[in-house]
């Protein structure tokens, strides 16, 4: 199997703080990987390094066999990556519809745009809010919108940073189903999440980050059973 994404010795420090500290990581095409780890472990920073928002202080990122360490973020999106940030980054003054239009017109032909938007609205349960300004949405709906934008770009590699934080139980499950479906379509997905039920629902492989390093790596069951993982992260069960 060829890895779709691979990092070697990836490091990032801010001032003196070494936040990501030599991560070697690879994910194969079509895989769904959950990245977990304590608060401040460097998960979001890792994702931002992948999408290019931060420049690594050392190490490299390869995407589909190509070194993209020096490629600008928007070009990486063009290559087929897309991200949902931990904090929903929406355009407060634009309506939900406009958000989707913005995304959709980048990936489908002009005459298909409106059909595709309708499809997305239904898929993400946003039909009733389609004309609401995104700034006026409830927190959960903002998360939803953010996920829909990331998915709507039809990437090859989807990065989701805490997609279900703040989503109700039902919507969390719905998201899980969605991810499974996307996986079935062959999409490669990386998810950071603290909601263990969700992780169990979607994940097969788990990577645990801790202190900017890969702490544990392997099949879901095995990793979550480990005592050291429980100690640094899961707590008592």
């Amino acid at each position: 199997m060829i890895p779709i994404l691979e990092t070697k010795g990836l490091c990032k420090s801010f001032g003196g703080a070494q936040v990501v500290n030599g991560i070697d990581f690879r994910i194969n095409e079509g895989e769904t990987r959950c990245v977990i780890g304590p608060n401040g472990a460097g998960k979001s920073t890792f994702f931002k390094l992948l999408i290019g928002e931060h420049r690594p202080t050392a190490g490299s990122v390869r995407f589909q066999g190509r070194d993209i360490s020096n490629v600008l973020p928007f070009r990486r999106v063009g290559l087929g990556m897309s991200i949902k940030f931990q904090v929903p980054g929406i355009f407060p003054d634009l309506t939900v519809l406009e958000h989707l239009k913005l995304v959709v017109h980048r990936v489908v032909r002009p005459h298909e745009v409106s059909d595709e938007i309708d499809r997305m609205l239904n898929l993400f349960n946003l039909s009733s809010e389609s004309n609401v300004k995104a700034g006026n949405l409830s927190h959960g709906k903002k998360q939803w919108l953010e996920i829909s934008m990331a998915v709507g770009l039809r990437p090859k590699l989807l990065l989701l940073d805490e997609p279900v934080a703040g989503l109700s139980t039902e919507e969390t499950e719905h998201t899980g189903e969605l991810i499974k479906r996307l996986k079935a379509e062959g999409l490669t997905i990386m998810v950071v999440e603290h909601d263990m039920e969700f992780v169990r629902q979607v994940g097969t492989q788990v990577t645990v980050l801790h202190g900017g390093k890969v702490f544990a790596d392997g099949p879901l069951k095995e990793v979550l059973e480990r005592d050291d993982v429980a100690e640094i992260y899961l707590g008592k069960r």
Partner: protein
Amino acid sequence: MMETPLLQVTDLQSGYAGSKVLNGVTLTLEKSEIVAIIGRNGVGKSTLLKTLIGILRTDSGAIELDGRDLSPLTPDVRAKAGLGYVPQGREIFPALTVEENLKVGLQMLASKGTTEMEMALSFFPVLRAKLRQKAGTMSGGEQQQLAIARVLVGKPRVLLLDEPSEGVQPSIVQSIAAKLVEISGSLGIGVLLVEQNMNMVEMAATRCCVMDKGKVVEHLTKQQLNDAELMRRHLAV
């Protein structure tokens, strides 16, 4: 003789310019009680808390703290009267350092608050290591912990928590829950806990209100909370 409850909310209505969200919420909160408020995304949970703290104007109804009507007061007066609010999305002051964020919380006290600060830091040890870091550069979960600590140092009598577990690692969620139980018990603090994380609700709440369409539609007892099947039905509404 009936004792006046700590916080009594009667038929509360409010909303945003042009759209009414709360359609008459009634609930009571006694001392040492932790009341969870659950419900699907967009039903008005955050709106309820925003109205209680006074960010949103009360259109009708009453909010009484120890029998004193708060509804005509501004948020700062309500805070001084004893309401402590942790908003959804953290809303820490990003350009202030962690220490300065805490100092803003400390100005509620007459004293210098050295012991309160110490208490908060020992409870959230990540913060101690990062006192001089700009709060905006902290990880999501760290920021959430800061937001909670910032209110706790001000020694509120009623805590209004809007999804405090969001983005926080499972083990710390557990300890926050335990701590809430402990301080509400020992100090007689009342807590209104808006949550999506059922683990947290189970661990901390003494009782639970289910909201839908701007109203409290159901009250659940501690026992009912532990009945997973029942919960599932309620949340799916």
